[in-house]
């Protein structure tokens, strides 16, 4: 909806319709997230970055596909272009700023084609966002994913020292926590209105 205000887009993507907790995107890395807070934070940064890159790519591709009237190439070109752009950006960062590369770089290849990234590209296209809206959407989604992961990492860290019963250890526990976080985020319902 091109009329949505930027603020609404941001709040929705990051809080109300959090990509992880409400849209179920990027669940595997979310569940697999290590309990190291620092890793979670930096990974969140990397995800946000890749989201921005892919958002811009997807916007460009969509313009092109409409121009040549080939909607059936959408999926293939999104995947291909996003993956290779991230690869290029990675090489660029490696050259320009080794420090930044060390902070983000190792995560980049792992993130390139997870569902949150592709989902973002598809959603923004379906919604017909303008360029600026796309950027804000990517930032909001990235912030939401980062927040979910950081919260998860903190809770896991705490639970590492708890006497968790054997049956609930592992993924089942992570899912329960995710469910409770999701319930918690329901409190923000209606905020974007």
């Amino acid at each position, binding site marked *: 909806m091109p009329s949505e205000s930027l603020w609404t887009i941001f709040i929705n993507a990051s809080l109300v319709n959090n990509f992880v907790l409400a849209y179920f995107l990027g669940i*595997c890395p979310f*569940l697999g997230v290590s309990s190291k807070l620092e890793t979670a934070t930096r990974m969140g940064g990397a995800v946000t970055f890749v989201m921005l890159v892919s958002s811009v790519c997807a916007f460009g591709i969509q313009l092109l596909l409409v121009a040549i009237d080939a909607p059936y190439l959408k999926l293939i070109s999104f995947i291909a272009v996003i993956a290779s752009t991230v690869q290029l950006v990675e090489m660029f960062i490696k050259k320009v700023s080794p420090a930044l590369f060390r902070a983000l770089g190792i995560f980049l290849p792992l993130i390139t084609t997870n569902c949150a*990234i592709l989902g973002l590209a598809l959603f923004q296209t*379906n919604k017909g966002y303008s360029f600026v809206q796309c950027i804000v959407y990517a930032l909001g989604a990235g912030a939401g994913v980062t927040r979910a992961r950081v919260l998860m990492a903190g809770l896991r860290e705490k639970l590492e020292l708890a006497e968790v019963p*054997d049956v609930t250890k592992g993924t089942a526990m992570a899912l329960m926590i995710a*469910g409770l976080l*999701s319930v918690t985020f329901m409190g923000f319902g209606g905020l974007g209105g």
Partner: protein
Amino acid sequence: MAATSKSSTDEFIKGLWKENPVFVQVLGMCPVLAVSNTAMNALAMGLATAFVLIMSNIAVSSLRNFIPKQVRIATYILIIATFVTVVDYVIQAVSLDLYKALGAFISLIVVNCLILGRAEAFASKNTVARSVMDGLGMGIGFAFALFCLGAVREILGSGSLFGAQLFHDAFQDWVVMILPSGGFFTLAAWLLLFNWLEQRKERKAKSDEATTLALGKEAV
């Protein structure tokens, strides 16, 4: 001949239970959670994924000697994306309502690690026949798991199964089950059940061992 057919049956069986992609390997969680709010959606998604899985397994295993290692991932993605696009159009043609319910998650089958994982880990190293069995097993196992989730969520969340009302009119829906959090809770509950069964089996095995040991000692 008998041996091969037997082992490809095994390839088929393992995906259903012992290596179930959802309950045991915990792969491809996003579609599992996102579209399992009704049994119908879950089954449709499961079948769509199974279709892509089988087709890409066939394609990858038959091309396995043709594709150089360096470009294999790129090629696999190309193949998978193709089949996903096909499925996407087919579902749109079959029912717009279903398409709307499954939303972007049909397209997201592309990045489901289950499919790329099987392509890379199995199909690229095995014959077409065995890859088909593997794809069938994994695909049906995936669809079955999705159905398990969808059924529980629909029964509790809407009081129905495949849209058919199961209880009396006044049944109180558990809205949470069709909300995102319900997806997490239901899958967690299934995993708890699996864990519990697994641990019970282990404990039993251990106590059996212990008794045999004790018996053995007595005998000595």
